[in-house]
């Protein structure tokens, strides 16, 4: 069983709830459950991850059992069931990228951030992980950063340095 921390109190803003309503309107009546994946993305974009409290609220909104949400959230790799760094660097680790040095980039990011895959840096800013093919193999190595899944292509150690310092700047300004 997954052990979860119940540390979050979750409130959905009116804006978010309006967004939910727009999403639900895309499906025929009685098929509101179709909205589950897009809604989970919206919730994660706001909260950074999906706590069980947040998932229970989504279940209540869609009028389905909480377990149906857990089943889905735990199936797909994009949903985080644990808190993450503010920026999660997701680097492709699949064959075609590895042919042109993805493994070295992943190792380099680990060294540079001083954490292991899945851990969060002490300042709470970064975590990273290897992910499977991102459909950008011709621009390899690549990484993406949620919640907008901005893409960074043809990575080199220099461009990784640059990216990390840019992100730090961004964080200190916000």
């Amino acid at each position: 069983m997954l052990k979860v921390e119940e540390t979050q109190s979750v409130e959905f803003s009116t804006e978010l709830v309006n967004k939910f309503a727009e999403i639900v309107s895309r499906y025929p009546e009685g098929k509101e459950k179709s909205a589950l994946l897009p809604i989970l993305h919206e919730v994660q974009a706001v909260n950074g991850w999906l706590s069980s409290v947040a998932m229970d609220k989504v279940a209540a909104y869609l009028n389905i059992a909480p377990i149906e949400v857990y089943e889905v959230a735990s199936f797909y790799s994009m949903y985080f069931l644990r808190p993450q760094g503010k920026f999660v660097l997701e680097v492709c680790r699949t064959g075609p990228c590895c042919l042109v040095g993805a493994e070295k980039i992943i190792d380099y990011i680990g060294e540079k951030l001083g954490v292991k895959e899945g851990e969060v840096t002490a300042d709470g800013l970064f975590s990273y992980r290897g992910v499977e093919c991102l459909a950008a193999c011709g621009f390899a190595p690549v990484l993406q950063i949620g919640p907008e899944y901005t893409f960074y292509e043809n990575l080199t150690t220099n461009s990784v340095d640059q990216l990390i310092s840019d992100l730090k700047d961004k964080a200190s300004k916000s």
Partner: protein
Amino acid sequence: MGRKLLLEHINVPGINTLEVYRKTGGYRAVEKAIKTMSTDEVVEEVKKSGLRGRGGAGFPTGMKWSFLAKPEGVARYLVCNADESEPGTFKDRYLMTNIPHALIEGMIVSSYALGANTSYIYVRGEMMPQIRILEKAIAEAKAAGFLGKNILGSGYDLELYVQPGGGAYICGEETALLESLEGKRGNPRIKPPFPAIAGLYGCPTVVNNVESIAAVVPIINDGGEEYAKIGIGRSTGTKLISASGNINKPGVYEIELGVSVEDFIYSEEYCGGIANGKRLKAVVAGGSSVPILPANLILNLVNGDKRLMSYESLSEGGFTTGTMLGSGGFVVLDEDQCIVRNTWNFSRFYHHESCGQCSPCREGTGWMEKVLHRLENGHGKMSDMDLLVDVSKKIEGNTICPLGDAAAWPVASAIRHFRDEFEWHVRNPTLAVKENFGLAHYADPLPELVS
């Protein structure tokens, strides 16, 4: 220069906007189909074109459309498969990023042909930027009267929505995709029933790849017969090839089916040869799921003829000496690459992506990955190769969906063609961690191999 049907205007500035797209002739197919053709006529043109599904299986699109059940009073759906997750494949992302309206236009024409009034584009969740691009394009098309109620005054209504996935390769399998679109885990369904009878929400549904749908646009504009003139034999038309790995010019290329593999790899028009002056060792020609071939077998057929980029030529020789066009993910490995490591990497991918529903795939993919991992890390045994082949056979054909086969083939083919490289790993465990086996005889002319 080969003819371009999908990417002809890719370099026109602003082609991602409706305005520029229309200036290059965009939305002519919608006008033509909806105003001048019956739905059956559209289906007929697609049949005539010989278009085969570009998502991997190569099933004739027109025929698939004609199987769609049409019971009275039941909604029908068209769902576009934009889950693109097959390692080595990135053409759909490229097309959607640069010319989103090509897909939207294709969706409108295809939905009209199938009598669908609501259609979905299921885009893998990681492609959030592409989702935004498509949503914007849909809004533009709607504002211009190509979507929504009473399109172009024809009385035909269509709503088009973009649905994000959640990160799962298996959702590219069409029934897993439909489950996911219904808000469930992406477990492939047990067939029958097929989606053409009971698909999305239990209604008749067609699932087509992004490129297949975009190809409907030139087919309607120029006619199915014109389209069928391009290409070779039953491989008609043009195909987007995603080229990656150790080549000078990785990227997406539109080819006329039938160019030779050699030209594709070495000509300046396409990949521009192997990077850094290295030599070619192996190619995975159609996405990670298809058998890997050594240099000599990918360039030539056993009879010495050149192998061509077509469904038939790539699969010539069956699993003994051939491979498949698949999704067109063309991955090139140079002489410095290790086949064992690459096979392990692919195997880890399938292990990671198995949905876990059926026992041979759930257990077998993990087993293969572990054996390959120990081989790659110098702990392998001579018997491991036979074990891997045996495990792959126990998965292949015995599973609910083709992911089991897709996991088995790369492993079986790597051992079939590169057995001596695997054996070298076992014999030289310490060396194998530091060095690679190199090109060895994998590029030697074929006749010697055969005799």
